[in-house]
């Protein structure tokens, strides 16, 4: 082994990488917000009486779950070009991950919805609540409770998936910044070890704070 490690070079680039990490977290959070909203809508659509809505939701969910996330990002980045829509790598990555999140979360939400007795909804309606109000005040809080754990998992997945942006040429997120530095210096191992450590810290922070939050939120 005749390789000299140059760690100081990697540590010098740490501020740049941390800025990249911020973008990574930003993409993950945004994709989760969109993903949860679309996921709830898809879960409801899948049980809807309107057949086209059901078909649309099924197509979305099965595509998201049965093809690689990278494929979904490619589809948005390259595929939409055929319709004359050219998207930048940042929105392509964001939409791709959100699409994936929505598909996976929709299935969990569907399971969660089934766990809430239909009698509760009926009771709420007969107390004079409108359907949306009953959904918001009765169903949604219980749903969020059972969905807390799957959502935390999905959040971790979203963070890990943001690294795929580099494949479609994103150079502002953590992996993108690291790759840029790597191309300039060829210190692949040092830079990516540091990036890996930052990813580890981010995911650990998310899982640990979720555990603390769950303990506080769901005391009863």
């Amino acid at each position, binding site marked *: *082994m005749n390789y000299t490690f140059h760690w100081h070079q990697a540590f010098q680039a740490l501020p740049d990488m941390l800025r990249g990490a911020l973008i990574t977290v930003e993409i993950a959070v945004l994709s989760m917000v969109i993903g949860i909203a679309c996921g709830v809508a898809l879960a409801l659509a899948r049980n809807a009486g309107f057949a086209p809505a059901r078909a649309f939701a099924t197509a979305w969910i*099965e595509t998201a*779950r*049965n093809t690689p996330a990278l494929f979904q990002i490619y589809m948005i980045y390259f595929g939409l*070009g055929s319709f004359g829509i050219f998207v930048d790598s940042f929105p392509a990555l964001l939409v791709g991950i959100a699409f994936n999140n929505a598909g996976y979360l929709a299935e969990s939400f569907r399971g969660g919805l089934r766990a809430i007795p239909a009698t509760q909804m009926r009771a709420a309606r007969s107390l004079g609540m409108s359907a949306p109000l009953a959904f918001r005040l009765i169903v949604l809080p219980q749903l969020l409770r059972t969905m807390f754990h799957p959502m935390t998992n999905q959040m971790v997945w979203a963070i890990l*998936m943001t690294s*795929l942006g580099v494949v479609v040429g994103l150079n502002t997120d953590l992996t993108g910044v690291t790759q840029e530095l790597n191309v300039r210096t060829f210190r692949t191992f040092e830079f990516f070890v540091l990036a890996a450590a930052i990813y580890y810290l981010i995911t650990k922070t998310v899982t640990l704070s979720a555990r603390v939050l769950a303990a506080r939120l769901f005391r009863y």
Partner: protein
Amino acid sequence: MIETDFARTDLWFMLRGAGMTLTLTFWAVLGGTTMGLVFGVLRAAAPWWINAPLGAVLDVFRSIPLLIQFILANSFKSIIGLDMSAFMVACVVLSLYTAAYCTEIVRAGVLAVPSTTRRAARSLGMSWSQDLRYIVYPIALRVSLPSWVGLALGVMKDTALVLWIGIVELLRASQVIVTRIQEPLLVLMLCGLIYFLMSYPISRLGAYLESRWRDHD
């Protein structure tokens, strides 16, 4: 008729890519499951001073993007001067990655067997290995198999990332064709269809096993 430059040889090229995807999946799942079985049983039985470090190490594989694991393994291989093909590197990384998830699945399965059942087996005179084989294995299998099917499917989809270290699998093959004929939508749709055909039947099987075994509990 729609005009296209997509040739028959292109389809063959993509199918060969799909073959690579399946080969990688096979080795990853084989290696990962073997290690996962050992580590999973170990994690369910071992004292904390083995359990905690093992869990922490395996947790690293689940907390770092797979893409970065590939890059790190590939450059580390060059640093220590190991003569290994990109395919071997991909298999090793994917196996470890699979093992990290499989360990948790196996552990959950083993822990799902009531300790009273296991004590009953031991007090009937069964040895530890007999207990594992005849009591723990059948019960744990029911708990673990649906998740294991899900894991195998997940790994198949994650193999797409090996394109970064220069292996031509299905997605990379599609990209090569897109670059040549400039018809991204058609080629990517076909690519997605192939992934779907490889994944969907198995995912239905997993769902079937889960519902069937739940209903018969």
